[in-house]
């Protein structure tokens, strides 16, 4: 039979083109795998199999999702979006930090209506964009869960209506039978003062008194100025103009008067460059070391009482034409004289009126007034008198004060008097306006919590004629009411404080300026810029120092009375007078001098420390510190003893502000011991110096110290060798050769030959250069970095275990003799090495290098082997040992994973506090490594802005948080490929070097040598005192 060919249709029989094509394929339709992903089902291309796949997937996904309980997080969209808010875009509002005595013009960064970061206000002529650690940290107090949520009578919550009615009545009654006193720290808001005046008037003539008291007292200098100039005020100091600066017990870079402003001005004349090979000369005479002393070219270490006699010595040489007892001080006096009229500046931090009288006499003789000191603008930030506190307690006890109101002050804790809390209870009416629980508020009948400054309208006149505005960056979080509005209500004024403010500005300030025409232009610009400078008016205070001679005798007599062993109480940079004790960021900020966190302690001389058997743990294995009982002025205080080089023998330093009892989580935030009660009066003012005796006790304490004193120099094998970590020189050497102190760099760079090709960085090449001459170790950058990058606070115990998470730390190195060492502060952060040891050891490439020179972390990829941290020569990588951020926490009840964490750390992750988190930065979970990212989110943001405008990035647009926070502009950051940039200029400077560059890490963070303006040779004998015992 012949082969028959069967066919189904014409197409097959004729083998038409279309038929052949379909017949060749096994599956006629396209494989649906790709289309089902890229195209929606509705296009009809998906078929039954896709449907089943989709179904299977959805059911599985639904099952998985349903079986794992996920926390419900509500996100509510704007129904009417506020015009100025674009989700994902930050808004900046000019405002002013006025909190706990801290004052600083700033910009508030808000995201979706939440303030998340403080930046310095560059338009301000006061701080020129610099910030302080306290200002940076003040944002967290807005989101503090322990803030008072509304008015209270005793422990009972009441409504504002009820509070107003009850207090109003009681105030009237109190005014009828006696006096009502508003007790506050210095009020330097002109409109607030106006409100207070109006309130006082409403109570009746002679029925109201405003007592001003500053816990860190400036009474001495105010009284002295009243005596010698007839003006109870503090003049402006121009540290930039002074060629020779002598500070006597005056921490003007850290805590004294206006440290951010002073640091900014001071550093102007401390930086040297190719074009400016001159710098000021700074001599510091002090007992307990401060960052100011550590930054000085010459530091004369003296006992606390000799801080007083040093002023007498200066007076004797400069004014009276005599001789100095202390030859070193005498030499300083000669230098001051040699500086020429108007080029010198002497400041002293003493609260003794006579000492300040002498300082005025000295400055007058040096011709400083009108040049480095100016009466044109005076400080309003400190106006208190130490007499106020005795006036208050006497008035309360003898019944003349029937009502007392406390505003921005906590005298029960800070006043060195006994029985104030009991005295307050004698008043018929007592009200505190504090918005957080404190010792004074606890003693009062009512608490009418004030708004946080970020929720307030206000104005500030910190220096006369310079007006700053405070505007709310968020609506009130709780049922609080601004202090001013409360007073207005109680004095029967109508309208809001905002209206009052405007009217007051129109009446008081608009006319005093000539720049803006029309009030609204003036007002809008004031709010926008945050600062308005009025023409200077106050002038013409003339010196009348007839009493200086008597003052010198009085000072000598007092100084002699302090005996052999002396204690000096000082204000800590972070905690201040204790107001900031409930701020975890500041508690965890290592003290720049001692590097201790979360505690106060007795600072002693290292040799004395070893000699008297305090050296329990010489290798800092467990950080065990022996405690001692220090008796002063009839009181006692028992604290751990910490040796700090530069402390003279028989001198003890104790920080005020610790040991708060009324703070939340008092076990952690109230650590340490309160010391205010140990201050005594010397004349009319409280003195920080005391005659002490000390006895070692058998108790010990574990201190969370982040940097201990180890040997940087190796003397034992083959001569003295010093690690190439910090480099320094003297001004003279620098004038001779720009690479002075950095001579070996050329050699190191030449030796760094490599066979490997260099990775190209065609776009940006981010580089940071830090001027060691400018860095004063204040710690503003550390806190700024914490807040910008959501760096967790881990608590005292974790810090003691060397687990602090700070991406940026400030290393402190000593050289020279123990008694009076040279100090270098070195901010240490990820060096973004172009040849990074961390990158090649990561088994999963979680850390890698960007084409812009950034060493970056892919947190999601990190499995936490910690090899990168081990292999980092700079030890800047930080591991999430626990779920510090509570990112992964399961609410399991019986043993949740947050168990080992401190209360404070946990309180930082309540929903309220989490509002401060920067949404641009990933919150890291447990078990991943993290570190400095060069604020990559800010760099990307800046690049995006430039891209939107179709242009390249301009120098200075991309900034890091540490850089903008720095009051001294020590940190320069930018693109080194841009040859016109400031950072390139710094990069090629001959002072520039990298830390331990000889191991060929090729860091992108570089440092500039420290230059000291003095004759002496470099000293490289590095401290090794702990092993002398």
């Amino acid at each position, binding site marked *: 039979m012949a082969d028959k060919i069967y066919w189904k249709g014409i197409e097959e029989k004729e083998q038409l083109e279309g038929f052949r094509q379909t017949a060749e394929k096994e599956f006629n339709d396209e494989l649906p795998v790709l289309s089902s992903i890229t195209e929606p089902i509705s296009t009809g291309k998906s078929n039954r199999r896709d449907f089943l796949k989709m179904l299977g997937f959805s059911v599985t996904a639904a099952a998985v999702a349903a079986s794992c309980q996920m926390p419900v997080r509500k996100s509510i969209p704007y129904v009417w979006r506020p015009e100025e808010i674009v989700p994902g875009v930050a808004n900046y509002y000019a405002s002013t930090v006025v909190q706990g005595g801290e004052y600083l013009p700033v910009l508030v960064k808000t995201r979706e209506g939440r303030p998340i970061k403080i930046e310095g206000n560059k338009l301000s002529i006061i701080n020129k964009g610099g910030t302080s650690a306290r200002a940076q940290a003040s944002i967290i107090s807005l989101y503090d869960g322990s803030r008072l949520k509304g008015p209270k009578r005793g422990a009972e919550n009441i409504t504002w209506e009820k509070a107003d009615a009850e207090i109003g009545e009681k105030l009237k009654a109190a005014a009828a039978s006696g006096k009502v006193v508003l007790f506050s720290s210095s009020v330097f808001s002109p409109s607030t003062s106006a409100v207070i005046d109006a309130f006082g008037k409403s109570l009746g003539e002679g029925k109201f008194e405003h007592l001003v008291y500053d816990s860190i007292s400036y009474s001495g200098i105010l009284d002295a100025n009243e005596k010698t100039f007839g003006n109870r005020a503090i003049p402006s100091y121009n540290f930039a103009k002074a060629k020779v600066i002598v500070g006597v017990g005056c921490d003007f870079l850290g805590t004294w008067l206006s440290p951010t402003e002073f640091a900014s001005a001071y550093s102007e004349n401390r930086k040297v460059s190719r074009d400016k090979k001159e710098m000021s000369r700074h001599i510091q005479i002090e007992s307990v070391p401060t960052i100011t002393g550590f930054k000085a070219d010459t530091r004369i270490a003296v006992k606390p009482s000799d801080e007083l006699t040093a002023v007498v010595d200066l007076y004797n040489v400069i004014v009276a034409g005599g001789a100095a007892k202390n030859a070193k001080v005498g030499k300083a006096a000669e230098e001051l004289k040699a500086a020429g009229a108007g080029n010198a500046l002497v400041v002293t931090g003493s609260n003794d009126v006579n000492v300040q009288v002498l300082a005025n006499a000295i400055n007058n003789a040096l011709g400083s007034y009108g040049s480095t000191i100016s009466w044109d603008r005076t400080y309003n930030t400190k106006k208190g008198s130490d007499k106020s506190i005795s006036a208050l307690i006497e008035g309360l006890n003898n019944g003349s004060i029937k009502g007392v109101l406390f505003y921005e002050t906590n005298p029960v804790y800070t006043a060195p008097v006994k029985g104030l809390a009991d005295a307050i209870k004698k008043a018929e009416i007592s009200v505190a306006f504090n918005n957080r629980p404190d010792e004074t508020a606890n003693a009062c009948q009512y608490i009418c919590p004030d708004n946080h400054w970020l929720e307030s309208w206000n104005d500030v006149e910190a220096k006369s004629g310079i007006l700053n505005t405070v505007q709310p960056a968020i609506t009130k979080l709780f049922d609080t009411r601004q202090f001013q509005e409360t007073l207005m209500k109680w004095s029967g004024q109508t309208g809001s404080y905002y209206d009052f403010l405007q009217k007051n500005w129109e009446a008081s300030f608009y006319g005093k300026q000539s720049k803006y025409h029309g009030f609204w232009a003036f007002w809008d610009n004031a709010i926008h810029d945050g600062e308005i400078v009025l023409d200077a008016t106050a002038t013409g205070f003339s010196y009348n120092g007839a009493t200086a001679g008597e003052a010198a005798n009085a000072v000598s007599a007092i100084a002699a009375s302090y005996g052999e062993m002396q204690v000096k109480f000082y204000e800590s940079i972070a905690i201040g007078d204790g107001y900031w004790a409930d701020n975890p960021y500041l508690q965890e900020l290592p003290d720049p001098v001692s590097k201790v966190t979360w505690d106060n302690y007795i600072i002693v001389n290292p040799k004395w420390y070893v000699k008297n058997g305090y050296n329990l743990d010489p*290798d*800092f*294995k*467990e950080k065990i510190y022996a405690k001692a009982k220090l008796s002063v002025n009839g009181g006692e205080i028992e604290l751990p003893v910490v040796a700090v080089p530069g402390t003279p023998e028989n001198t003890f330093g104790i920080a005020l502000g610790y040991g708060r009892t009324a703070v939340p989580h008092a076990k952690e935030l109230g650590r340490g011991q309160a010391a205010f009660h140990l201050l005594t009066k010397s004349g009319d003012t409280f003195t920080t110096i005391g005659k002490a005796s000390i006895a070692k006790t058998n108790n010990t304490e574990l201190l969370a110290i982040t*940097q*201990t004193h*180890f*040997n*940087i120099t*190796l003397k*034992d*094998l*083959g001569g003295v*060798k*010093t*690690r190439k*970590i910090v480099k320094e020189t003297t001004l003279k050497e620098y004038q001779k050769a720009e690479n002075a102190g950095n001579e070996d760099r050329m050699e190191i760079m030449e030796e760094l030959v490599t066979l490997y090709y260099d990775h190209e960085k065609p776009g940006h090449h981010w580089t940071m250069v830090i001027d060691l001459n400018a860095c004063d170790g204040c710690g503003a950058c550390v806190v700024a970095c914490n807040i910008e990058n959501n760096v967790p606070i881990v608590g005292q115990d974790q810090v003691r*275990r*060397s687990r*602090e998470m700070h991406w940026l*730390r400030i*290393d*402190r*190195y000593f050289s020279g003799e123990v008694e009076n060492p040279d100090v270098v502060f*070195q901010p*240490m952060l990820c060096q973004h090495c172009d040849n990074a*040891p961390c990158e*090649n*050891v*990561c*088994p*999963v*490439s979680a850390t890698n290098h960007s084409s812009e020179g950034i060493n970056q972390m892919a947190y999601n*990829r*990190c*499995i*936490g*082997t*910690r*090899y990168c*941290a*081990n*292999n980092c*020569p*700079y*030890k800047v*990588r*930080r*591991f999430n*040992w*626990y779920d510090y951020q509570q990112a992964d926490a399961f609410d399991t009840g019986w*043993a949740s994973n947050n*168990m*080992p964490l401190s209360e404070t750390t946990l309180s930082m992750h309540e929903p309220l506090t989490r509002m401060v988190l920067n949404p641009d930065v990933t919150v890291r979970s*447990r*078990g*991943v490594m993290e570190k400095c990212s060069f604020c990559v989110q800010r760099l990307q943001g800046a690049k995006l802005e430039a891209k939107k405008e179709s242009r390249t990035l301009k120098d200075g647009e991309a900034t890091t948080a540490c850089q903008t926070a720095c009051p001294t502009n020590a940190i320069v950051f930018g693109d080194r490929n841009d040859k016109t940039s400031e950072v390139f200029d710094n990069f090629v400077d001959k002072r520039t070097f990298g830390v*331990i560059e000889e*191991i060929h*890490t090729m860091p992108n963070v570089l440092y500039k040598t420290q230059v000291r303006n003095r004759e002496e040779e470099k000293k490289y004998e590095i401290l090794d005192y702990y092993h002398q015992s």
Partner: protein
Amino acid sequence: MHAYESEFREPLINGLDKNYTKITDDLVAPTERMSAMWLISTLLTGAGALFFVFCLGWTVWFGIGTWGLNKTIGWAWDITNFVWWIGIGHAGTLISAILLLFRQRYRTGINRAAEAMTIFAVICAGMFPVFHMGRVWDAPFIFPIPNTRGPVWPNFNSPLLWDVFAISTYFSVSLLFWYSGLLPDFATIRDRSKGKFRKWIYNIAAFGWTGSAKQWQRFESLSLVLAALSTPLVLSVHTIVSFDFATSVIPGWHTTIFPPYFVAGAIFSGFAMVETLMLIVRKLFNLEDYITINHIESMNKIIVLTGSIVGIAYLTELFMAWYSGYLYEQFAFYNRILGKYLWAYALMMSCNVLSPQLYWFKSMRRNIYVTFILSIFVNIGMWFERFVIIVTSLADDYLPSSWAYFSPTWVDIGIYTGSISVFLFLFLLFSRFFPTIAIAEVKSIFRTSSEVAKAERAKKEGAAHGGFMGFQHVGPLDKDAKN
């Protein structure tokens, strides 16, 4: 294997009552009855193993923060334990592979237990790199698995990744070697089994071994092939482990001497651990005739050799540090000897370098008590060697600002002691259910190296040569020699 052996060599199987049946009886016996001693120790170590699991669970639940590590010292007991266990695991392969290739007959008495020890030590070791991860649940990231995340590969430059390959290879080859060696012995047990279940299970374990000539021939070939495969592994695994440190930039880690130094140290500690175990096993299961003083002496010779190599490495490091003139290196070693970890260095030196020197004396080498104590010393010393390398180098490296100290927590201690429990627990199970001594291999040397064989030969030779040679030394008719 039936080559001539000098009559001067001591027998490797003692006892004139030995024959093939007796050997089988003796060596299978531990699997056929249970002693109270075994039960108690198994329960105790089992409890320890559970505590190990508990401590690991604690770590995973709360975080690595429960260990004593800090920002400066990112590895301490975890990686110390890892390297220690890996080192211990080295003796097994060395004994089975290299000694097999070198035809060292004394290997037969100890190879099975040594291999088992290797397997268990590697299991213990493997726990640490896994559980030291901050996010152990993401551990699979480390494997080069093609994935839907796009081209996300592990970093082939990282020595940690090399570790993954080295250790997994080592583990698989060792397991294969060990298990293939067990097949004829499982068959022996099966054939003696009375219970049905026991027969069935050992039959499965023996892969149905029948003992045919073809099977024996393939078995021998496989042994040789595996021996050849694992010989380089003996050297490579610890070399790669040493790269974890040698490729870094940390002074005290960054040392080219590390690979040979680590391998010698591994063999050193491995033999010590074999001795510790075998001395217990021979007592517990009455195997003194099979694990003889001769075996112990041979191992002690290797211990004194490798211990001295390690000692030379320590001194070389010190010399190089001084000779380099490099500050950081000099400081690292200065600090290692005289710094805050002086005690650890002193322990390491005395246990590892000084104590094995006793073995230059024959009386010491052949003393069971000295051997047992020294084997423990060596293990302590080798643990401290790793601790000294890892922790002292990290504690004080480049920038003095971040120097720190490590103190272990209870979890650290629990995991370490727990891992020892896991190891002993597994070994006890092994010794109860598996033949602890390779029956077939011991039988293979019966004709050459047993006391019986030597006696027989001596008898023959004595007859031929006037009976002098054998009588003097090991002749079975010499009553004194026998006792």
